[in-house]
């Protein structure tokens, strides 16, 4: 009584052996990691205290932002360390089991799925790409190049004051429409260019400015799974895109390598698993 199993991820047994997972501390910063053999596979776990991670306590704790932030960060740190040394199927935050048998049981259900997934993940890295745009710059850029806009501006200059005002407003909304279309197409084209290098991709939520805290608008947020030998070419492609897009207000943010968070769908839910 008092200790639960916190599951970080699943890997090949040999890889867990070689990586020497016991050198690292778990999510609570004190209990060391170890692994449980599951046939060819291994579950990387650590003990956690029931007083902190028990089912009831956990429900309350996940509402405490400070606690959650600290632990989730720690969870992420552990996964980063593990991911560095092995092919890993990362588990969601707070995937907890009461008994070792329960993990064994889960493994017997998911074994084939996990093995296939690990084979797919072999030698890959996950990278995330966020594309932002400063619409004022794109507006300027679009307006100064588009022949129809130029023509209409010339016409407007010849008009009387009142008409000038109305037509300028109309032109503004025309340009705005063009800009929002351009934001969509440009980001989509970038994604297709990046996709060429990838084994798999997935789109993530595009956040609004309140969440990002940036002046630029987020236009695309995607996760990319790449073979390691493609990473360099992928990043080069992004650097080129960054340079090409700068003048028109485009900003591309790339982060990684991450544990394959977005490519490890094993239908595992967080919480105590019995």
């Amino acid at each position, binding site marked *: 009584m008092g200790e639960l199993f916190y599951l970080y991820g699943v890997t090949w047994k040999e890889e867990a052996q070689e990586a020497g997972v016991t050198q690292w501390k778990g999510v609570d910063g004190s209990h060391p990691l170890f692994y449980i053999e599951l046939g060819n596979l291994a579950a990387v776990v650590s003990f956690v205290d029931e007083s902190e991670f028990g089912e009831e306590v956990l429900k309350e704790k996940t509402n405490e*932002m400070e606690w959650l932030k600290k632990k989730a960060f720690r969870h992420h740190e552990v996964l980063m360390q593990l991911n560095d040394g092995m092919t890993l199927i990362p588990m969601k935050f707070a995937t907890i089991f009461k008994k070792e048998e329960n993990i064994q049981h889960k493994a017997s259900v998911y074994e084939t799925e996990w093995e296939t997934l690990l084979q797919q993940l072999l030698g890959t890295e996950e990278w995330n790409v966020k594309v932002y745009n400063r619409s004022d710059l794109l507006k300027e850029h679009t307006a100064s190049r588009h022949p129809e806009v130029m023509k209409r501006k010339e016409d407007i200059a010849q008009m009387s004051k009142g008409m000038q005002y*109305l037509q300028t407003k109309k032109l503004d909304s025309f340009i705005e429409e063009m800009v929002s279309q351009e934001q969509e197409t440009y980001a989509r084209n970038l994604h297709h260019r990046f996709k060429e290098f990838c084994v798999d991709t997935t789109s993530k939520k595009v956040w609004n400015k309140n969440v990002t805290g940036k002046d630029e608008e987020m236009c695309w947020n995607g996760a990319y799974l790449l073979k390691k030998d493609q990473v360099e070419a992928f990043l080069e492609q992004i650097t080129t895109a960054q340079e090409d897009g700068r003048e028109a207000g485009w900003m591309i943010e790339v982060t990684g390598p991450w544990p394959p968070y977005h490519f490890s769908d094993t239908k595992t839910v967080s919480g105590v698993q019995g």
Partner: protein
Amino acid sequence: MPLNDLDLEQQPLKSGRINLDPDGAEQGLAQLVLTVIELLRQLVERHAIRRVDGGTLTEEQIEQLGVALMNLEVKMDELKDIFELTDEDLNIDLGPLGNLL
């Protein structure tokens, strides 16, 4: 779960919210009122542009309408200056619906 997915609670206090704290009630009310006026002004303007495009107005009427709307915008800018509000302040965030304007 990537770390940045957890930063939701750290939303910066941006414009686009009506600030109705007890000490600044006057300022909050001004922002609220001007937000509504600005919304109406823009609706009127868009409607006017549709009328102009409809082709039922005489040139003189169009001219008058244009000048009137232009003056309205100038006045609106003055009011924004007086209450120290920016366009962003008048464009309230309606959450999932996006921004008002």
